[in-house]
């Protein structure tokens, strides 16, 4: 692999994953527990990144927060991909009325401001990992559906699909075996970018106080820091950096995948 950005992204991502897994090893105490004096600046004894106004360890919060971010980011992206691929594949393959109906639904979801709907959903159904994951999936599947629909529409007119029809292959087999493998690379790429977007959405929810109340998360930490920004800059700076680094790493990996999966064979020179 010769894409330096993607390699750097993969390394950072790996570190974040390790941090999430080993959080209880580094910080045996719960991130919610008071472990020192409140509002200690970074570098204080045992408080590498300082403490918040309740004396909680910022470093520990960041380590445990990685778990929420990764799990929610991954699972909600998966939810969105499953919905998007299903809707897009059916609309693109069958066309006509099926396409019309599914596209009206897609447009509907595209029109509603996703983040506002997300807030409404999570607030009404009370915040929990499950409600957050489902809600994020529900507001972010539309781009996938459009991509997959486009791929299916163009692929289904390809002659190899016509040949399969002439061989008597069933619709399901044609969708799954002939077309889907050819439509997968853009899905993988946008799916990987969706993980980053989902992490951002989760952090925004927690920032507004709509995170899972049982789990420490980066967004929650920034939200808590807002009112004391004059007193303790470290409370908001470090969790924010954690988000930026993680999402940046994911996006770099996504871009790398994009390059790897769509090899624009060194432009054919028309002679």
């Amino acid at each position, binding site marked *: 692999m010769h894409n330096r950005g993607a390699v750097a992204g993969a390394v950072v991502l790996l570190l974040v994953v390790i941090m999430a897994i080993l959080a209880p090893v580094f910080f045996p105490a719960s991130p919610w527990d008071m472990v020192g004096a409140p509002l200690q600046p970074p570098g204080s004894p045992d408080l590498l990144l300082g403490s918040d106004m309740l004396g909680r360890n910022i470093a520990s919060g960041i380590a445990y927060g990685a778990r929420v971010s990764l799990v929610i980011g991954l699972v909600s992206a998966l939810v969105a991909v499953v919905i998007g691929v299903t809707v897009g594949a059916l609309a693109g393959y069958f066309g006509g009325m099926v396409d019309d109906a599914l596209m009206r639904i897609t447009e509907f979801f595209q029109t509603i401001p996703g983040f506002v709907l997300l807030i409404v959903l999570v607030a009404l159904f009370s915040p929990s990992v499950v409600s957050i994951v489902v809600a994020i999936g529900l507001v972010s599947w539309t781009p996938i559906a459009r991509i997959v629909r486009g791929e299916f529409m163009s692929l289904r007119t390809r*002659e190899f699909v016509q*040949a399969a029809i*002439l*061989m*008597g292959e069933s619709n399901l087999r044609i969708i799954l075996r002939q077309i889907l493998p*050819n439509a997968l690379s853009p899905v993988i790429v946008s799916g990987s970018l969706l993980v980053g977007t989902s992490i951002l959405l989760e952090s925004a929810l927690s920032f507004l106080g709509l995170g899972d109340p049982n789990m420490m998360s980066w967004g929650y930490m920034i939200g808590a820091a807002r009112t004391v920004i004059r007193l303790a800059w470290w409370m908001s700076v470090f969790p924010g950096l954690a988000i930026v680094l993680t999402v940046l790493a994911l996006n770099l990996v996504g871009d790398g995948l994009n390059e790897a999966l769509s090899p624009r064979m060194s432009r054919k*020179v028309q*002679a």
Partner: protein
Amino acid sequence: MSKPLLSIEGLTVDLPASADRPHALEGMDLVIGQREVVCLVGESGSGKSVTAQAVLGLLPPGRLTVSGGAIHYGGRDLLKLSPLELRRLRGARISMIFQEPMAALNPVVTVGHQIAEAIRAHEPMGKAALHDRIEKLLAMVGLPDPPLLRKAYPHNLSGGQRQRVMIAMALSLSPDLLIADEPTTALDVTTQMQILQLLKQIQQQREMGILFITHDFGVVTEIADRVAVLRQGHKVEEGTTREVLTAPQHPYTKALIAAVPRLTTTQRAGIPADAPTVLGTKGLVKTYGLSGNFLRRSRQVRAVDGVSISIRRGETLGIVGESGSGKSTLARLIVRLYKPDAGAIDFQGVDLATLGRADLRPYRRRVQMVFQDPFGSLNPRWTVGDIIASGPVIQGVSKQKALSRAAELLELVGLERTALPRFPHEFSGGQRQRIGIARALAVEPELLVADEPVSALDVSVQAQVLKLLDDIRHRLSLAMLLITHDLRVAAQVCDRIAVMHRGKVVEYGSTVDLFTRPQHAYTQQLIGSIPGRDWLEAEAGPPAARPAVSGSKPTART
């Protein structure tokens, strides 16, 4: 040769390091005299377009770079001009037209504006005078209603009309040299002939030189004074058109000329009169609705309008027509990729036209298709073996058996067994077409429908694939339906031909009759438009009177 207008000396153009050869063009010499039409002939990748682009300094920057040689024009070396000096020449002294007339015009700017731009870039001019000049130019290239057309957008025009606009634009400042890069390749034959005649006429009126790039020796005979043949970046032959055609020196030139489909309708074995009919259609109709909106009623277009044909065992029936004639729709109706709106498809007593998806399944394998696009017709994610075996596997044949049969089929179509585990992208266009043929044959069809099977291939490969199809039809006594836009192709392999025009069969008969005694005016026009017909017939024997190409006057589409 007249006084030189442009002379290219030792031109070498480098390809990027990733390419399969170092140079796009190597040591190219070419002289174009004043009032002379020089054709540059070659297959794809020969470097002919690169030559054209190098003259005007239009090579894609960073990908193709000139590394040697000179291009003399008007006492100066074009390769040494500053960008500004070069720009002053472009469009004014040397202008250019391209292959795809749709893509070559800016879609969001009116035709008039685009021509105006070309003029204004070199010659400041008042609005009224400019409009007047544009309308005169549009009239000169034979476009109707210039004042209206000036305000039209490219998408309002047909392909031929767009190419006329391109020509008007290229001629707007009376250049000495016109570079035409495959200007008729994307057009139908009758339109192609009209554009060729227009170019020839204007060239003589204006005493221009033309550098004409083409892959088709037929076109060469229509327009060229001299010919240069390019192969993989090297000029292999040059001479007057007559010399090159009658006495080609280089083997490659000979092969190219030999590959041009002859008009001679080869004497065929003849089908026994009692050969059973494999498939017959009766009054087949397919209509497409052009979606309208609530202000404009949706229009209905009859793509196929009451077509009745029949194909017997061992016979090849050609369906010939230009784009939009409905020939491809007819093919897809017969194999039942589309459902006809009316009419019957009698397949040995069963009417395929009315069968539903499930009822159709047992008949699927008996009617198979070979497709046009060698890149689109094979699933890029499947191995060649899986592609060919897929049909029999669906029929219930074991995978192992299907694969060993696939290996035999590969040999039948002239490929190695070792191709089985490889993927389509490892093969050339012609080889892929062979794989597509093997796939169709794998289910042992009785009727093979070939939809433009050679139109995407280089001429030399075309002949081989056609021959293969003909051999297979003969050996397996298949019935074959050959869809093509090229009468020359049909002449080679078809026993009978149906000519389609606007959804209808306008003439239907034996190939020999059709060529020697065309009845319908449209058939006569089609035959008259075959590029290089005079030459081909002179080669073949007694010439027939050439019907004039009148060509229906183009009208603006709205």
